[in-house]
């Protein structure tokens, strides 16, 4: 059977592993995760497509490698409510509220109203010590605070995705991934505004 042509972005699952490994040793690398936030939005806003989700999401690729190649996934159907509109948009709202809270904490540290917390907060509740990954040299405290906060968000979503990968289909996280909901919302709005659909996104071309 014909094999799909391989592209450089088919290996971005390695980047995903690298990202979490780097953050274990130096929390400032967490800032690189901003790429995963901005790139999907840029593709959606300017390209009107989900090229990032479709081809460049290292996390999605990692779930597929673990779930399909290593057969860690039970491959059971994802529960219906997980991809229901109310849950997807509700989770996005919750996620953005938590993100806003994290940005506010960063502001407080920057303004000197709160002190830097060298810990990672899992599932928005449990604090894990992570002080070894930060040595106070050359960067303002708010930069470090944002790194800890952002890494917490990334690690939490990775863990939720991994649990769902094992229990259901490998990319069950994608059913309600906040970035996916946001970018699809933008794409749909674009189609409504422009009144036409753009060319299909296939491997190797964006439009």
């Amino acid at each position, binding site marked *: 059977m014909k094999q799909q042509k391989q592209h450089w972005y088919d290996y971005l699952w390695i980047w995903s592993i690298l990202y979490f490994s780097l953050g274990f040793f130096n929390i400032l690398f967490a800032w690189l995760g901003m790429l995963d936030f901005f790139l999907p939005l840029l593709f*959606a806003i300017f390209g009107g497509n989900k090229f990032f989700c479709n081809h460049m999401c290292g996390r999605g690729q990692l779930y597929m490698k673990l779930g399909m190649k290593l057969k860690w996934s039970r491959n059971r159907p994802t529960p219906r409510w997980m*991809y229901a509109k109310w849950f997807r948009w509700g989770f996005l709202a919750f996620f953005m509220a938590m993100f806003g809270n994290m940005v506010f904490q960063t502001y407080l540290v920057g303004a000197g109203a709160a002190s830097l917390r060298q810990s990672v907060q899992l599932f928005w509740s449990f604090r894990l010590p992570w002080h070894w990954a930060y040595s106070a040299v050359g960067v303002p405290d708010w930069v470090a605070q944002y790194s800890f906060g952002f890494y917490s968000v990334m690690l939490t979503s990775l863990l939720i995705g991994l649990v769902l990968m094992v229990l259901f289909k490998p990319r069950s996280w994608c*059913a309600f991934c906040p970035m996916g909901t946001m970018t699809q919302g933008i794409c749909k709005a674009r189609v409504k505004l422009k009144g036409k659909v753009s060319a*299909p996104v296939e491997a190797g071309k964006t439009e």
Partner: protein
Amino acid sequence: MSCGTCLMVCPREALSVVSGCYALVDSLRCIGCGKCAKVCPASCISIFRREAAAG
């Protein structure tokens, strides 16, 4: 959801995501292997058997 998981598994590159809104199957390329339906986290894709043309 247009996550594109189906694109990753299709051996014939028969799928595409249109305008970030929905997945489109090219029926000329599709061989009906069902890999896309198996991995779709939102169970968007169904496989239907086609009756063989008479004669």
